[in-house]
């Protein structure tokens, strides 16, 4: 988080992490289409010709609280391809919260696990701790055949620590829920850590209703129980 007390400005960094082709960019693209064109920030996508993320994607949101505090949320994606590890590490620098976008296909189990392991390592290299970083997990591509079953994911999710969302990002299902879930978890953690509500005139509830107003409520997401 970057805080500029003089200009009453807070910048929160969220990062979508995950294996190649899991749908990180698709999540951002969908969020982008939901935003009213007048309010839209630019979705910056730095990708190769075949749509693989080369460096990162960035979708910015900004909001000014009733108390005049400016909040900026910068949502990044990392490039999932294995060779881009250095870039992933850079994009993770100073991340306040991480959304892990996993691919539901059974064939991707290893890739998900490998990517998750590298997330831990790259966070550690940036002086961050996976166990204490706000984290949500999305199982994307629920529309495909040969995926891990709902039952299995629900059972495992109930044993794990973090919220798990199921999504079909190309259809926009679960995208908003994942994002709002990650943001509110991150904000809660930052607030606790930095006493934001005491130092700044900004309330979690007004941010959430702003975001919900902009991209729609979380009703469309399906949350694993």
């Amino acid at each position, binding site marked *: 988080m970057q805080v500029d007390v003089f200009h009453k400005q807070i910048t929160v960094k969220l990062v979508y992490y995950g294996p190649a082709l899991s749908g990180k960019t698709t999540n951002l693209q969908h969020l982008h289409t939901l935003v009213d064109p007048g309010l839209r920030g630019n979705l910056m996508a730095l990708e190769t010709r075949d749509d693989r993320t080369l460096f990162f994607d960035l979708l910015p949101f900004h909001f000014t609280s009733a108390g005049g505090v400016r909040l900026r949320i910068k949502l990044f994606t990392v490039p999932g391809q294995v060779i881009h590890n250095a870039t992933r590490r850079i994009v993770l620098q100073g991340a306040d919260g991480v959304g892990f976008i996993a691919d539901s296909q059974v064939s991707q189990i290893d890739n998900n696990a490998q990517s998750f392991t590298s997330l831990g390592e790259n966070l550690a290299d940036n002086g961050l701790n996976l166990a204490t970083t706000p984290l949500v997990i999305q199982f994307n591509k629920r529309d495909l055949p040969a995926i891990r079953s709902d039952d299995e994911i629900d059972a495992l999710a109930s044993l*794990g620590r973090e919220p798990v969302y199921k999504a079909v990002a190309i259809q926009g299902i679960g995208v908003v829920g994942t994002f709002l879930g990650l943001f509110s978890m991150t904000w809660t953690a930052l607030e606790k850590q930095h006493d934001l509500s005491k130092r700044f005139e900004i309330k979690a509830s007004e941010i959430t209703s702003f975001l919900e107003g902009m991209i729609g409520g979380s009703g469309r997401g399906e949350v694993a129980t």
Partner: protein
Amino acid sequence: MSIDLMQSAGIEDLASADDLETLCTSFGSLLGVGIRIVDAEGRGLASHRLLADACEYLHGFPSMTGECESFFQRILKPDGDADGHVVHHCYAGLAYATMPLHYDGDLLGNIVLGPFRPSRGSGAAGQAELTSGVDRAKLETLVERTRSISAEGLGRIFSAVVTLLLVILRMGHKVMATGLAHTLSVEESYRQLLEKNKELEDHQRRLEEVDRLKSNLLATMSHELRTPLTSIIGYSDMLASGMGGGELTEDQLGYVSTIAEKGEGLLGTISTILDVASLESGRFEVERQRTPITEIVESAVHKVKEASPRRDVKLELGELSSAVVVVDPEMVGKAIYQLIDNAMKFSKPGGHVQVQVRELSQRPKGDEAVGYVVMAPKLNWVEIMVCDYGVGMPQEIQKKIFEPLFQGDDSVTRRHGGLGLGLALVKHYVAANEGRVRVESTEGEGSTFYIRFPREEEPERPSRG
């Protein structure tokens, strides 16, 4: 200055001065009006200047030039709170319009349009004090000559200019971000490479040193110990078979056989020591492949039975599993063989040893719960149990039993002699295949050894969600 992907940039970082100049000139000449772009502090970045006749007339009066200056100072700096464009009237009866430029929530600068003649109804003209000597009537005629722009027209002009300017900024931003990300990534890769290089060099140096020492030691050990031992065994065998000439008494035969037998045992121990040593120096290759665990266990059981068919201990193969592991089958086979062989050795005559294979699906403990839903398939194990009802061992021995140079007190060493090294080997074999080994034991009741390996997910269990 530290740069990072989170930084905000100014107009001058995102667009070249030339591009801004071109934008001003093309719009300015198309519309016949002056236009300038300034940054967030009001500093000029590009402009297309058109001086109205009225201005030129007034500039003939030295004191008016200062007035003109201070008017500009007031309007150049962007007003972030302004909603849309703002019209500023100057003392000459002309006007300028300004439009703050926002980009990604940042106030980047101001677009200033003018001078133009405000259409009626666009607010009262700012008729400031004019220096004496100015001919008001003349001034008004001159003002009439300047292009007039309606409020609506201003809206359209600004909309076009802002749109185009944002396109330029967005492209510039993308170029800047790409360049920055590229530079940072290359730097990071380079840093990683340097680090890895250094690690590798250190490692290499250490390995070379260790390797030199170890090879010497191993070669010497191998030679110095094995050669005389082979002679001892060979000669005692010869004696026992009567080749020494003359019959041996019963007692003598017994002594000589013991020498040969203990010699064989010692040779086995030495081979194990050498195996452990070469494992520790990392000089062995692990060839992992997908293998059903049952295959490995069954073949180890078979070998144990073959090696000592006359043992008075029953070997039971209990529950098995279809789980597949990715291991070096030979190595893991040796480890299992060793455990079963030990179990048989430490069993009472007439006793039995049980071997079982079970699949474990464990509940996450502590930080294992982080990302559990993703990691769980990698946290599932298959466990091989080797259970005997022999002498068992006390707690303090259980802790040390896998250490290569483990030595208990004398009585313990005597009772469990030969066990330490074999188990050190088991531990190495298992660890080299990403497995774990542990023991549970009660003195006088028996011991159970557990080896576990990560279980491979069977790919044919998909279902629709």
